[in-house]
């Protein structure tokens, strides 16, 4: 049982860390991209959205190359933090963060863009700074977008396969998450076990969708 649960716990751990880190990244980038005008803003928005269209294996490949111990980035992580990125949990965490970035940032930016411009302008004329306006007026009015961003990021990370496999491989207890466990059991022709993992992910996905629908109604009334 413990052996069966290990990939599920690892998936959960990966999704929790990815969502928490991306929540911070998403809110900060939402603030910068929405509240400031600067050159290259469209390019940054395009780069953030890139993982939506980029095949996961392509992204995984580039990250794998970039994180090799003899590469610059891989060397920095190893020297500064003593962490080897490839074929480790830290590597798949970084891959998940990059791959799920648009799932967190895009809903937040869409929510902010949909708010009437006059709300933030009213706040400025009432003596509030950009930062105060962002947290006191804008963020409370995009609650449902924030919620959608958190859930989508979490759910997307739970089912991630391509990037994780490219960067992390299939190491039990370290990088073998639930989606990779399905692949692994299929290859070993353990169809019953693969089916159990698949069933857990299917039920999880259904629960997430119901939860999103239920909570969005609650948030709308809040």
């Amino acid at each position: 049982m413990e052996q069966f649960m290990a990939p599920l716990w690892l998936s959960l751990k990966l999704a929790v860390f990815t969502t928490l880190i991306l929540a911070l990244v998403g809110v900060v980038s939402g603030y910068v991209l929405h509240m400031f005008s600067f050159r290259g803003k469209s390019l940054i928005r395009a780069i953030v959205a890139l993982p939506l269209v980029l095949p996961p294996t392509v992204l995984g490949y580039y990250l794998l190359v970039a994180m090799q111990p003899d590469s610059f980035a891989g060397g920095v992580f190893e020297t500064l933090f003593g962490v080897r990125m490839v074929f480790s949990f830290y590597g798949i965490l970084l891959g998940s963060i990059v791959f799920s970035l648009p799932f967190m940032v895009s809903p937040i930016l869409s929510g902010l863009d949909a708010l009437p411009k006059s709300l933030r302008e009213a706040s400025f004329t009432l003596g509030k700074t950009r930062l105060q306006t962002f947290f006191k007026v804008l963020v409370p009015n995009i609650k449902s977008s924030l919620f959608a961003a958190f859930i989508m990021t979490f759910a997307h990370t739970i089912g991630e396969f391509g990037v994780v496999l490219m960067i992390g491989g299939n190491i039990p207890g370290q990088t073998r998450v639930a989606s990779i466990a399905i692949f692994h059991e299929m290859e070993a022709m353990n169809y019953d076990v693969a089916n159990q993992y698949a069933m857990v992910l299917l039920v999880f996905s259904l629960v997430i969708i119901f939860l999103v629908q239920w909570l969005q109604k609650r948030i709308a009334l809040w």
Partner: protein
Amino acid sequence: MVEAAYSLDCTKKYADRGRSFALEAELTLSKGSFTALMGPSGAGKTTLLRLLAGLEKPDNGVIRASEAVWSSPSAFVAPHRRHIGYVFQDYALFPHLSVKANIQYGFREEVDNAWLEQLLTVFKIQDLVNDRPASLSGGQQQRVALARALAAKPALLLLDEPMAALDFSLRNEIRGELKQMLGLLNTTAVMATHDLLEATILADHVVWLEDGKVLREGAPREVLKAELLRLKEQTRDI
């Protein structure tokens, strides 16, 4: 000589309904005065208000508040530092806050409860303090927006067609309340409006704009009389 509280001498390109214009504003507002900006749609009334608020930067020229430079090619004072009040056409009330919290948001430092009570009383919104903006009528939202803009006792109040969506009797009532509060605070006010009656009742100075240029300015009666005569001439030509 009347003390000049604010002065604009600037240009700004703007667009309205797909057409481009260049606003050429040369204007002086005396302390405690009430100026009505009038003219057809696209004349530059809102752009002028936004320049004063710091929501837009002029392309050229200077905007001053007494001796301080608010906007120039080398200096810009951000809107939150200008000590102004702005009533938007759509009121821009914060949907997540109650009426009371919306008004409290307008206080720069600590909430002055006596002043808050006075605002609630004058604008007749004491019974709505716990309501959210979405549940209010247009007139009630207008009153909350005015109360919020006046909460910090601004030196300059900017009003962008604030009563455009209200019926005649409600406008009349709110005009009275606004006048009462402005008299109390000695606030300089600038209002964009299409309403001749409103300009005559509230303003002591009218600026008539067309295609971004100041066509004429002066006492409400003179400016409006001249505009009516011009309109009459134009109609006769047709």
